[in-house]
């Protein structure tokens, strides 16, 4: 049995279970900590660092930090918000994120975080990297321009034997996701759809279907990302 511990987020008294991750505990206390690479029911990776908080004065990722008694967590301070906004801006500057021409626009989590932080323009110069769109798979499009290398698809998309459909390929600045060749045939329309839903940006797209949700009804058109946690009081 896990014991209950009390902790504070921005001075608000909260309760949680010892050892659970700070992001989960915060959600149950109706506090949203922005995450990007994190995905429900999947082991955290802490690759994006968007969930950065200050725990007892030290900067940490809340998705991988287990909860302890008496933690004093800073979440919505100006300093932390600036760090997070900076990370989002870096991601926008690093890839080719052309929101107007992206099928995922409106339901994209990276974009939704940009909205949440009211990012007008990245503070960093755009890199305009030259990357390819790989549409060789019969059911799936990979657009490396939009990939933020969060590894969500690698961690979540697995077949019945637990093998990943996707993998990292190459190294360093050339790192990209690839479809595992021996499992490529097993990617059905349903798997492609799930991969598209799992991807936080528009890097993975199901073929022959898109733009099917009208503007105004997409995930983040009217409500900011994370508002579902904040509304529960």
């Amino acid at each position, binding site marked *: 049995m896990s014991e209950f511990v009390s902790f504070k987020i921005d001075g608000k008294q909260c309760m949680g279970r010892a050892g659970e991750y700070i992001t989960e505990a915060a959600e149950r206390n109706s506090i949203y900590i922005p995450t990007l690479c994190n995905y429900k029911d999947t082991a955290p990776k802490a690759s994006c660092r968007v969930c950065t908080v200050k725990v007892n004065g030290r900067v940490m990722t809340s998705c991988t930090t287990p909860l302890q008694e008496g933690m004093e967590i800073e979440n919505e301070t100006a300093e932390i918000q600036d760090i997070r906004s900076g990370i989002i801006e870096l991601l926008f500057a690093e890839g*080719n994120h*052309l*929101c*107007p*021409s*992206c099928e995922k*626009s*409106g339901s994209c989590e990276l*974009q939704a975080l*940009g*909205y949440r932080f*009211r*990012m*007008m*323009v990245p503070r960093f*110069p*755009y890199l*305009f*990297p*030259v*990357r390819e769109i790989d549409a060789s798979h019969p059911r799936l499009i990979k657009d490396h321009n939009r990939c933020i290398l969060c590894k969500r698809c690698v961690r979540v998309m697995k077949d019945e034997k637990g093998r990943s459909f996707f993998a990292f390929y190459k190294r360093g600045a050339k790192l990209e996701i690839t479809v595992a060749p021996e499992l490529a045939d097993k990617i059905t329309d349903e798997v492609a759809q799930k991969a598209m839903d799992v991807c936080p940006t528009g890097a993975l797209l199901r073929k022959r279907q898109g733009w099917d949700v009208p*503007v105004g009804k997409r995930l983040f*058109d*009217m*409500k*900011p990302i994370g508002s579902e946690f904040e509304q529960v009081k």
Partner: protein
Amino acid sequence: MSKAVVATTSMAGCFGCHMSFLDIDERILDLIELVEFNKSPINDIKHFTKQCDIGLLEGGCANSENVEVLKEFRKHCKILVSVGECALMGGLPAMRNGLPIKECIDEAYLNAPTTKNCNPNRILPNDDELPMLLDRVYPCHEIVKIDYFLPGCPPRADLIWNALYALVTGDELKLPYEVFKYD
């Protein structure tokens, strides 16, 4: 109080941001009470006739003429505002940024389905009067200092109106979630 003077232009853009600006509906009557326009496609004044308070920029810089216009705006406007995705990051024209210029020109004038069979002498535009294409499309703030940014493709009419109103009156900018979009 004298009215604020506003100038607008469309560089490597599609005029969509100007259309969105006109989408303020009946507030256009408030607008003419609030500002007067100088160089702008809205009143068809081609050249600056005086110093302006606010310059609204649509589109990024794709050729030498765009750069010239942008520098002219910086010289004549106290405040410059980048309006729309193209001004902010190059937008759709910036999709050519990874390609060599020769490939773009060949595609447009020699190989495209609509030009393939009607350009037998393989003529490429090459006249001193024509502005030169830049090596890539540049966001406005990489060429001159830009003071404010309004994202969107196009920015919602309410966003442009709120920003212009806040700039002219000195009020705080209203930024509701629904009007702040990148698409």
